[in-house]
C-alpha cells in the first residue's frame, strides 16, 4: 500500500490572530505553529492502514515555508516513512487552487493507492484542497470521512462520510483522495524512539524548477482568489449580568430579557 498524506502547518488553535497594521497580511510574529488538526487524523489513518496491511509506505507531502519542517518531522516521528517538502518562495501566498496545482504536480510522479488530506486547514478554512487535488489527478475524492475500511483485495475502500444530520456510506475504487475529519481515529503522539528515528528519515525538498511549472501557475501568482484586506471581527461588548437573589429569579429575569429585550424567543 502506497499512501500519501498531504499535510499543512498552521497556527495553533489557541493562537490569537491579528492582521499586520496595513491589514494586508496576518501578523505571524510569536505564533506557535502546529500540524493542522485534521491532518493529524489523516496521518493516523494512513499509519493504521499500513499497520493492518502489514506493508507499504506512508509519504508526507507538505507545501510551506522552512518552519513547516517541524510538522513534517512530527508526522515522521508518528511513524510516516518519508516526506517531500515543496519549499520555494514561489509557492507562497497561494489559494487552494494554486496550492493543489503544485501538490498534484509533485504527487503525479509518485506511486499511490490512497491520498489523505485533512478536511480543511484551520487557518484559511477553504476546505477545497482535497477535491481540487482529486480533480487535477483525475481521481475520485470523498470529503469529511469518519471511517475508512479497506476491502480484502485492497482495491476498494468503504468509507463513512459525515453530512448534516447523517452519515453516508460510500464505496470507491482505489486510488482515490479522502479528506479526514474528527471522529476518524485518535491520533497517536510521537514516541521518543519515533522522534529519534524521524531525524534519519528521508525529507526531500522540492523547488519550483523540479516541478516543471512556471512561476505564474503556483503560489500567489497562480491563485484564483486573493485577499485584499484583513479585518478583525466586530468587537462584542460584554453585556448585562442578569440580576436576581436566587437562581430561579435569575432564570426568570433572563427569560424575560430574551423575550422582551432581545426578542429571540
Amino acid at each position: 500500500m502506497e499512501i500519501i498524506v498531504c499535510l499543512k502547518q498552521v497556527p495553533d488553535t489557541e493562537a490569537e490572530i491579528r492582521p499586520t497594521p496595513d491589514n494586508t497580511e496576518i501578523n505571524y510574529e510569536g505564533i506557535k505553529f502546529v500540524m493542522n488538526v485534521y491532518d493529524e487524523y489523516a496521518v493516523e489513518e494512513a499509519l493504521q492502514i499500513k499497520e493492518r496491511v502489514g506493508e507499504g509506505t506512508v509519504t508526507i507531502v507538505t507545501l510551506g515555508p522552512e518552519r513547516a519542517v517541524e510538522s513534517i518531522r512530527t508526522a515522521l516521528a508518528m511513524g510516516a516513512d518519508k516526506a517531500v517538502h515543496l519549499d520555494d518562495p514561489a509557492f507562497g501566498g497561494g489559494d487552494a487552487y494554486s496550492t493543489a496545482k503544485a501538490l498534484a504536480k509533485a504527487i503525479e510522479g509518485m506511486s499511490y493507492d490512497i491520498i489523505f488530506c485533512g478536511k480543511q486547514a484551520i487557518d484559511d478554512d477553504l476546505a477545497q484542497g482535497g477535491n481540487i487535488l482529486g480533480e487535477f489527478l483525475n481521481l475520485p475524492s470523498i470529503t469529511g470521512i469518519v471511517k475508512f475500511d479497506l476491502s480484502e483485495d485492497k482495491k476498494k475502500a468503504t468509507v463513512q462520510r459525515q453530512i448534516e444530520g447523517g452519515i453516508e456510506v460510500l464505496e470507491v475504487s482505489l486510488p482515490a483522495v479522502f479528506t479526514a475529519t474528527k471522529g476518524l481515529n485518535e491520533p497517536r503522539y510521537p514516541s521518543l524512539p519515533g522522534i529519534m528515528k524521524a531525524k534519519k528519515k528521508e525529507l526531500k525538498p522540492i523547488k519550483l524548477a523540479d516541478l516543471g511549472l512556471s512561476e505564474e501557475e503556483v503560489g500567489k501568482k497562480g491563485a484564483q482568489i486573493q485577499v485584499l484586506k484583513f479585518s478583525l471581527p466586530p468587537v462584542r461588548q460584554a453585556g448585562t449580568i442578569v440580576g436576581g437573589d436566587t437562581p430561579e429569579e435569575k432564570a426568570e429575569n433572563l427569560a424575560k430579557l430574551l423575550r422582551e429585550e432581545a426578542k429571540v424567543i
Partner: protein
Amino acid sequence: MAGIWVYAEHRDGTIRKVTFEILGEAKKLAEQKGEELCAVLVGADVEGMASKLGAYGAERVYCVEAESLSGYTTGGFTKALSDLVQQEKPSILLLGATANGKDLSARVAGRLKVGLATDCTGIAVDDAGTLQARRPMFAGKVYAEVSFSDVTPQMASIRPNVLLALEPDETRKPEVIKITPDVKPEDIRIAVKDIMKTGGEKPDLTEAEIIVSGGRGMKGPENYHILEELADVLSGVVGASRAAVDAGWRPQSDQVGQSGKVVTPNLYIAAGISGSIQHLAGMGTSKVIVAINKDPEAPIFKKADYGVVDDLFKVVPPLTEQVKKLKAE
C-alpha cells in the same frame, strides 16, 4: 448573456433554507450587474421545486434531471453542473456552504479552473462587476475581503443563517428550463451504499436558529438532558464544547469551535463553557449570546449579551420552565 447562478441544494424533496438566503442577496447583485438571477436544481425529480425558487427571487430555473442523479454524488453532480456552466457561462456561481455544497463547489472550481471563496458571510460586486466576498478565516478570528481573478464564473459558497431571504411571492413565476445532462457511470465513480440519519428531524448546528451548548461544567454526559429539555422548549438544538466532546460526553458532530463547527444562530446559550479562544471563534457571530457559568471570571462573559453568574444546574431547569410559561402566554 452571463447571469448570476445559485445552486439550489435540496434534500428529501425540500430545498435547503440557505438557498433562499443566497437568492435574497444575489438578487441585489443581479440588479447591480444588470444580469438575470438563475437557480439550478440537480437531481432525478426536481421540477416540482422550481416554482418555490421563483417565489424567492429566481427569474429562471434550470432543472438538470437524470435518474443517475437521484442521490448526491460528487462526481455525478460535478459533471452535471460543470457542463451546464460551461454551456451557459454565468458570471457568478453561488452555493450554500453545507457539507455537500462545499464538496461540490470545490470539485466544480477545480474542473472549471476558477476561483472559489468558501463559507462567505457577505457578497457584493465592485464597479467592474467582479465578485467581492467577505469570509471568516481562522474560524472567525479574522475576516478577509476576497477578490477574484477575471476567470468566470467567480464562485463562492455562503454560510447558512447569515444572509436574508426575500419574502416569498408565489405570483413570481420563473422560466423553467429542463436540461438532460450527459452523466455516465464513469463520471460518478462512487457508490452510495447507505445513508444513516443521525440527527432525527432536528436541523444541523450550522443551520439552527437556537443552540444550547454545554461544556466541562456539565460534569458528565448524564446531565445533558437538562440542556435537551431547554433546547426542546426553544425549538433549538444542543451543541458542545471541545472539552465535552473530547471527554466523550457528546458526539463530535456536536462540537462548536475552530476544530468543530462554526455556528451563527439567533440565540446561543453557553452553559458551563468557560470560553476558550477556539470556542469563541466558532460562536462569536451568534446574534445573541447567553452565558451561564458560576465562575464570574470566565472569558465567555466578555462576549455574552446576557450573563448569569450561578450554578447552571440551578439555573437551567427553572429557565426551561420560564420559557415554557412565556411560550404558553
